[in-house]
């Protein structure tokens, strides 16, 4: 199995520090580490999905379905994923060379009862056709965007690349602002008043930083030869 990127420079702790820097009210007593980590995990998944829509290749990982698992009617459990992009068939004889596998919606599975095809149900890959249809196949390779688990430590590496750090921090800061705005200055003495932040300012920063990153992502796809321009923003 391959992973999308090697380890980057920045860690979750760097993003967290950058997000907390945006307001003196974003201290750990108001946004504890566990809360921040769960917010940041959701932000990262949001960024990955958005980038994947603009550059489907960016976060692709692969996993192999071995010969022994190529049994129609026996689902094969895939790693946790955000989306399955496509599947490639490799043959035992190396001829023909690998070919795209028919990737169907589950509702069309009966269209391929006599031929090779795959469909996904939940986290499982299912094969159509008969066992004999798969006799010449050595293995399948599934291309997918992996589901990124929650951060468990400030030293965890980011899945998004380093140039997404500003977008990540701005998005996280916006979530912090929503949490802190209206929070009492002192929970033990509400008479001291409440914190008044303007979340719209943080939203604008998030929008600008995120769009900047996604535009870089899109420009990256434009450098590649493509047969269609459907993914261009």
């Amino acid at each position: 199995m391959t992973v999308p990127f090697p380890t980057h420079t920045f860690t979750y702790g760097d993003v967290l520090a950058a997000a907390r820097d945006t307001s003196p009210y974003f201290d750990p007593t108001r946004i504890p580490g566990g809360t921040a980590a769960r917010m940041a995990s959701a932000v990262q998944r949001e960024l990955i999905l958005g980038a994947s829509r603009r550059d489907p290749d960016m976060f692709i990982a692969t996993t192999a379905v071995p010969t022994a698992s190529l049994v129609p009617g026996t689902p094969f459990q895939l790693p946790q994923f955000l989306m399955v992009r496509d599947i490639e068939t490799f043959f035992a004889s190396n001829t023909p060379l690998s070919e795209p596998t028919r990737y169907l919606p589950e509702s069309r599975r009966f269209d391929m009862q006599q031929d090779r095809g795959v469909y996904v149900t939940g986290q499982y890959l299912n094969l159509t056709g008969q066992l004999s249809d798969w006799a010449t196949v050595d293995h399948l390779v599934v291309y997918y965007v992996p589901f990124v688990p929650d951060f468990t430590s400030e030293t965890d590496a980011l899945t998004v690349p380093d140039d997404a750090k500003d977008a990540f921090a701005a998005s996280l800061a916006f979530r912090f602002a929503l949490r802190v705005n209206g929070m009492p200055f002192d929970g033990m003495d509400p008479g001291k008043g409440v914190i008044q932040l303007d979340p719209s300012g943080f939203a604008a920063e998030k929008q600008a930083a995120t769009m900047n990153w996604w535009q870089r992502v899109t420009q990256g796809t434009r450098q590649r030869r493509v047969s269609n321009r459907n993914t261009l923003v």
Partner: protein
Amino acid sequence: MSTDISTVIQRAIGRSISNNDPGMTGNSSLMIAEVAAYERDIFRVAARESRFFYTEASVTSTDAPSARSIALSAITPPIERIVRVLLPTGVPLKQVDYEDQGAELAPRYYVFRTTLYEVGSEWGASGPVTMTVGYAESPAVLDVAGSLSQTVTLPDEYTDLLDLRLAQYLAVKDTGRDPTEAQALGAEYGARLSDVIDGLDHFGGSVRRRFISPAEQPRGSE
């Protein structure tokens, strides 16, 4: 620090002729208890306002694979307030409430009385763990049954705070004394304490800080 309790008492007596009666200060156990309480109050205020009386110490946990604990009641100097606890790797532990342990990422601890308790097995491999505790000091415990020659922990240049408090106590204790004397002593103590805290706080110069925290923080000479 060489000021003893006897000196504090004598200076308090000197603040009013009415304090000369031996009955006012004859109970040495009471005098020691009062001075000890005043000293603890000063260190408590100082802990909130300044890092001056902060220190670090090494402590070792119990020996177990998980749910280890560290008892801190016997540490010297005594702890007024824990500020930071570090694993041997330098990773800081986070204090969580017993009921809301999900508030922080691992490694975590919660506190019952003066003992730290591990959440799960987050302090590392099985066995005793030696940690570094950074904390605000409390003054050394004075023996109320002991001698008046015991010295206080407060630096000598600040011990006038103790005799001001003690003089105020004597003024209140003495039935029929003019109440304005106790009020004046209280006001003088408040002003003097503020000066002392300022002095402790600005020793290190201005401190850079990122946050405005709801918890009272050392001021950092703002």
